[in-house]
Structures are given as structure tokens and as C-alpha cells.
């Protein structure tokens, strides 16, 4: 998580050189979504559009990243909270524009942060099928229903960057196992309702 630094607001004023409000909007979104490691390349891409030096671009991109991430971290929802962050002498119009852009994007950004937080491997999809076993080496004729469950599991997004590894696991459940599992899942549901109703 990036913390706001002293030089950040000075760097933000470089945005006054931006060609349009949309350019500022675009840059804000890219700076938020970019992980710290990718800020360098992003700065290089931003240079030509803003007619600024490489060093200025780096400072700007870093400052925008810190500002947007800081606001999302604190969970601000009101314009006042965001406006308070800026120093006294900061350019009024730019301050208002940045606040407006941030407020527009804040809930999408929160979702993005939550989606990429660390976790155990995540369930991304699940499919099932019911088979009837009709014969085996131990019994020539039978009619035993069984369930095949396929779980698609994605490894921790943070570890895989842009190429998450999804593995498929197929499990077989007998009717008894399924009943026990449903009992467990039912208990979870009951406990969740109890927590929700408190």
C-alpha cells in the first residue's frame, strides 16, 4: 500500500499540462490499477501525451498512484474527505477535477482491490454430473448412482500476475458423502444467517 509523500502534491500539479480532462481521467485509472513495479513503463508511455520530461512523468505517475490508492485504502466516500488531503495552495480547479474523478471511480476501485487481495486458491467455477455405475470387477450387475464434481480453482492472483493458473480438480462423491457434505454446508448457512441477524 502506498502512502502519500510530501513531494506528491507538487508532482500532481504537473497535470496542469494535460491536454484534456479525459486525459487526466485516463491517467488516474491507469495509475491506480498499475502495481508499483509497472509504474516505470507507465510513466514512459505518459511522457509524450503530456509533453513532460521522463523524470517529471515518473514523479507524476507515482504521485497519482499513491493518491488514488490512499483514498481507496481509507475508504473515503465524501468529497470533503478527499479535498482535505490537498495542501492550501494547491490549484483549485485541478483539486476539484481530481476529487471528482476519484469519486466517480472509487467503488470500482474498491472492488478491484478486493478482487486482487491475497487469499487461498479461489473457486472460479464448478460443474457436476451424475453417473450410474452398472458393472465392476467385483459385481457384474449393479445400479449405483454417483456424482462427479469438477472444481476450477485459481491460484492466488498476486502470485501469478496477469496469467492466473487455473487448475481443474474432479472429485467423486457417493450419495453418503454428499449427504454428509450437505449437512456441513447447511450448518454453515445456519451460522451465516445467525451472524447476519445479529
Amino acid at each position: 500500500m502506498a502512502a502519500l509523500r510530501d513531494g506528491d502534491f507538487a508532482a500532481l500539479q504537473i497535470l496542469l499540462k494535460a491536454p484534456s480532462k479525459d486525459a487526466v481521467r485516463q491517467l488516474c485509472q491507469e495509475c491506480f490499477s498499475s502495481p508499483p513495479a509497472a509504474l516505470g513503463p507507465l510513466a514512459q508511455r505518459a511522457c509524450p501525451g503530456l509533453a513532460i520530461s521522463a523524470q517529471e512523468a515518473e514523479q507524476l505517475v507515482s504521485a497519482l498512484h499513491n493518491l488514488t490508492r490512499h483514498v481507496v485504502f481509507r475508504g473515503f466516500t465524501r468529497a470533503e474527505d478527499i479535498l482535505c488531503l490537498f495542501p492550501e495552495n494547491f490549484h483549485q480547479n485541478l483539486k476539484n477535477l481530481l476529487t471528482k474523478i476519484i469519486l466517480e471511480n472509487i467503488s470500482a476501485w474498491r472492488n478491484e482491490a478486493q478482487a486482487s487481495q491475497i487469499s487461498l486458491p479461489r473457486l472460479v467455477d464448478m460443474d457436476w454430473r451424475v453417473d450410474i455405475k452398472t458393472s465392476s470387477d467385483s459385481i457384474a450387475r449393479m445400479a449405483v448412482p454417483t456424482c462427479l464434481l469438477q472444481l476450477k480453482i485459481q491460484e492466488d492472483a498476486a502470485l501469478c500476475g496477469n496469467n492466473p493458473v487455473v487448475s481443474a480438480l474432479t472429485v467423486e462423491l457417493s450419495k453418503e458423502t454428499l449427504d454428509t457434505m450437505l449437512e456441513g454446508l447447511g450448518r454453515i448457512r445456519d451460522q451465516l444467517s445467525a451472524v447476519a441477524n445479529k
Partner: protein
Amino acid sequence: MGLLNFTRDPVPEAVSGDMHNLNQLSAQQFSSLTEVLFRFLTEPKEVERFLTQLSDFATMNKISLGPLKNIVKSILLVPNGALKRNLSSEQVRADFIALGLSEEKASYFAEQWKVNSPTLTRLALGQTLMINQLIDMEWKFGVTAGSSELEKVGSIFLQLKLVIKKGSQLENVYVELTLPQFYSFLHEMERVKTSLESFS
């Protein structure tokens, strides 16, 4: 010997001799031996106990253990084949008679077979191959209070640990689900249960 129900392969030579010896046992002795056999068939893991009971039977009835074991091996051919082929008790009886066992003893054994076959069938079904069988499921759920990106979160997470049998080893698989995913999973599992029940 005509066609047998319990097997298509030729029967070992020793079997008719063993049947002849069985015929020499009294009804009481045959009944005790049959009891020992079925106790073993319904609890196949109790090998020690089975061997002890056979040995006791041999001593009590003044029969040598070696020949007794051979006789038992021959007898067991029939119920094992019968189980695989879902034979009826009449077919079991017919097979024993074809092998040389007396009608009286064949009928008695077939009757015991009928009584025990639900248990034996259930045991055989339990041995059927399962791929990546789910053995156990552990779970915990909680609330994410905060993260490095979000100071206050308050979202519920659910973690499942699935214990899966892969071949002869157990493997643990850890999965995390969001709340909507959990409800969706629960809903799907209930559909599976309905489907399985309609086929039972």
C-alpha cells in the same frame, strides 16, 4: 459336470474330492463350518479370527487343519463367483450339487447365502473403483477485517479443505469461496442430491 453358474473356467480337480469329504460331515458340523465361513465373508478383514476359528473347528472335530483349509478354499470358490455374477440361491444350490455336494447340504448353504447376500453385496459395492474420492471436508468462515489495500473491509470469506483420496494417498485441497459462490455451491449440491435420489 455340466455348465456351472458361478464360473466359466474349469474347476480345479481337487474340488470334487473336497466335496466328497464335506459330505462325510454331520449336519451339525456342516452348519458350524458354514457359520464360520459366512462370518469371514461378511467381515473379510478379520483374517486372524477366521484362521483361529478354523483351527478350533479342526481340533473339536478331529480333522487335520491342512485338508480342512483345502476344503474351505474349494467351498469359497462358489460364493465368490456367485457374488460377482449376482446369482440367486437356486443357482448356488444347483452349482454345489453339480460339484458333488449332497442335496441337503447344498440347500442349507444356499439358504445361508440368501440370508447373507444383502450384506455381501453391499460389501462388494463398497469396493467399487472411485476416482479421486472425497473423503472429508473441513471448513471455516470468517470476516476479512482489513488488508494492505483496504483499511476496513468487512467481507465474509469461506475456506474449505477437501481431503481427497488419489490412488492410495490422501491429498488436501484448499479453496476459498465468496458468499455468493457459497450459496450457489450449496444450491448446486442440493440439485445433485435430488438427482442422486431419483436414481436410487
